[in-house]
């Protein structure tokens, strides 16, 4: 979480201080108690130690500026602290052991505050015996997994419950293929229970499902969702992709998808509209980023996961295509690490691969916007007062109206449209031209 460094009161009668020299720059790391800035007051000059270990994300007051006691001088992103909001992305795979912090483990409550709460002994047993708690049926209050549930599971579990190593089919990129089954070790199907109402079959929701559900509701409650939609002519991209796609697949071993092109265009657009790549810290502050960590939503068995391409602004088209392919593969194999599912600043979802033409996606917290790549279809459109048949796509952008206004959103989409409709990707793709 972000911790502010404030101007301290260095004497009872001191009311303000002046920054003499920053000992750390933005982006530099600092240890707790390490000197971070030199300040001067009416009484003394001194160095101020950092209150936490972490990275200086923002210097708010410059050298030689004078501010009152209590004014925030800089923001430090605390290292090793849990994410600001409870689970930042929905990206927890079924395979990750249950060591993520529960929402509010309050000992005073009758029942566990959040579904998915694992008590200390349950966590300890799960870790010790390498048990995936998503596979354990909970019989405690609110379906809580109790110690006895884990012990029962342990007793009935097959001895060879090693983590997945079975190779998956080299799955095509999200847009082309339907969801591939996650090969869990003892892929149990939750038995259908008889339910009270005739004709109903009760299914217990998996942990992933429950987390997605919570995240979606929470996101809707947090952000002021608006969806702007633009229509883009993908002919330019289509032509360039067609030219190289066979060679690319043959040489790289995986396909280059429309998503890769969209990702590249998006990263550029974000650099021009940084508020779409931001994070809202609290009522008074938002954080802008110098980087783009691009979340790519991937459909998996019983849900979805958002692996994150870190530093997408530095990647070439080929690099993005590869990252997308590899992360999607890992996602479907259930092999994403915590690092790979956290830290996104913007997310792209791709329901078009399943045929959707327009959706109004829910923002992936703590982002402030999400772009949806829908199905690319040939449509009749008007160009220069004549009817033409073009590869068209609707690209909805859901954004958080707390910090993004309609005009900005529309301009962002306009930029995206411009990029995709006019860019020459030859520099990126030259090596695949034969």
């Amino acid at each position, binding site marked *: 979480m972000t911790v502010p460094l404030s101007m301290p009161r260095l004497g009872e009668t001191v009311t303000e201080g002046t920054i003499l020299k920053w000992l750390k720059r933005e982006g530099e790391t600092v240890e707790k108690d390490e000197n971070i800035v030199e300040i001067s007051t009416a009484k003394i000059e001194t160095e101020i130690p950092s209150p936490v270990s972490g990275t200086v994300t923002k210097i708010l007051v410059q050298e030689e500026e004078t501010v009152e006691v209590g004014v925030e001088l800089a923001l430090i992103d605390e290292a090793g602290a849990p994410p600001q909001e409870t689970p930042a992305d929905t990206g927890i795979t079924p395979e990750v052991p249950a060591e993520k912090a529960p929402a509010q483990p309050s000992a005073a409550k*009758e*029942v566990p505050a959040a579904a998915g709460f694992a008590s*200390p*002994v349950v*966590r*300890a047993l799960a870790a010790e015996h390498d048990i995936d708690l998503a596979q354990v049926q909970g019989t405690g*209050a609110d379906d809580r997994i109790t*110690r006895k549930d884990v012990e029962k599971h342990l007793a009935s579990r097959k001895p060879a419950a090693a983590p997945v190593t079975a190779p998956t089919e080299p799955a095509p990129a999200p847009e082309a293929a339907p969801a591939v089954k996650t090969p869990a070790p003892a892929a149990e199907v939750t038995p259908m229970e008889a339910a009270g109402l005739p004709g109903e079959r009760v299914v217990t929701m998996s942990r992933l499902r429950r987390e997605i559900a919570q995240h979606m509701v929470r996101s809707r409650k947090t952000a002021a969702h608006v969806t702007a939609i633009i229509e883009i002519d993908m002919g330019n991209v289509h032509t360039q992709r067609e030219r190289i796609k066979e060679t690319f697949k043959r040489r790289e071993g995986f396909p280059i998808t429309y998503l890769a092109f969209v990702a590249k265009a998006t990263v550029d657009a974000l650099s021009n509209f940084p508020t779409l790549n931001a994070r809202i810290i609290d009522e008074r502050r938002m954080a802008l980023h110098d980087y783009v960590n691009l979340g790519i939503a991937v459909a998996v068995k019983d849900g979805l996961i958002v692996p994150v391409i870190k530093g997408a602004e530095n990647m070439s088209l080929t690099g993005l295509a590869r990252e997308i392919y590899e992360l999607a593969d890992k996602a479907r194999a259930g092999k994403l690490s915590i690092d790979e599912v956290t830290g996104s600043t913007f997310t792209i979802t791709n329901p078009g691969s399943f045929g959707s033409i327009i959706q109004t996606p829910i923002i992936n917290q703590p982002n402030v916007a999400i772009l949806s790549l829908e199905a690319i279809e040939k449509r009749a459109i008007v160009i220069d007062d004549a009817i033409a048949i073009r590869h068209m796509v609707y690209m909805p952008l859901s954004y958080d109206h707390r910090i993004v206004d309609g005009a900005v959103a529309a301009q962002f989409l306009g930029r995206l449209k411009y990029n995709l409709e006019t860019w020459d990707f030859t520099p990126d793709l030259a090596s695949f031209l034969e």
Partner: protein
Amino acid sequence: MSTANKPKETSYIEAISQALWEELERDENVFMLGEDIGDYGGAFKVTEGFLDKFGPERIIEMPIAEQGFIGMAIGAALMGMRPVVEVQYADFISCGWDQIVNVAAKMHYRTRDAVPMVIRGPSGGGLRAGPFHSQSPEGWFAHVPGLKVIVPGTAHDAKGLLKAAIRDDNPVLYFEHKYLYRRVKEVLPEEDYVCHIGAAKVQREGSDLTIVTYGAMVHTALQAAEKARAGGVSVEVVDLRTVFPIDKATILNSVAKTSKAVMLYEDTRTLGIGAEVAAIIAEEGFEHLDGPIIRVSAPDAPVPFSPPLEDYFIPQVDDVLAAIDRLSAY
């Protein structure tokens, strides 16, 4: 079986009398001071017959002056005697607070001089005796470094722990529960025996839930455990016996086994012994927990005189069952 063959059961209060008698016989340095302990034989008749047997220099009657005679006892202990002070009701011990806490508890720390003294008295409620004849003062003294504090729950432990206390070279506070005086009895060993101060005892084994308790509440816990068994819950009852020093190992072993813990104590809730045990479990047994640690205790109020109020005040079997149900359902 004829009465002649049936082994004689000793009540809790008889066990205390026996311990005192046997120690007075065994060691001539042991003597007693207290109000009405001579001719009258003690307010509860613990020392009936003692004056005749041991004489007025070993069974010394005191006026209502706890601070004074506790101070006297400390002085005697410093001279090598082993005094056993009786406070008529444990509540009155607060009159001697300064002598206990500032003198007796700290003497060895300051001067290396031992204070081998026992202060004993009847504590606890349930007898409609009102706010200052019914308290459980063990919490106050468990908080003072330099003292040992014992609260036995059974006749066996009452005798063994009192003997151990008298033989201990430290100042020991021994709170016998007046409610148990004639209500619990059991067959005691014939031979001389002592119980280990600082060792808890598992009074009933179980596997689903642990109740950590002491004093009269041991019996409440056992009754609740029996009823819970009918409901399919196997309750383990750990009797602390000594509330300071606390037997962490026994407590933590039990929680490791059951993963669920209830503290049951008759004392008022805030900062009672149960609060300390809960903290120990939370800190040192965290990984074993499968549910919150629950305290069942008296509320933070003086002990009521009115019978229905006192029954509300003192934790009952139903209160314990409610806690067991709550934890079992968690």
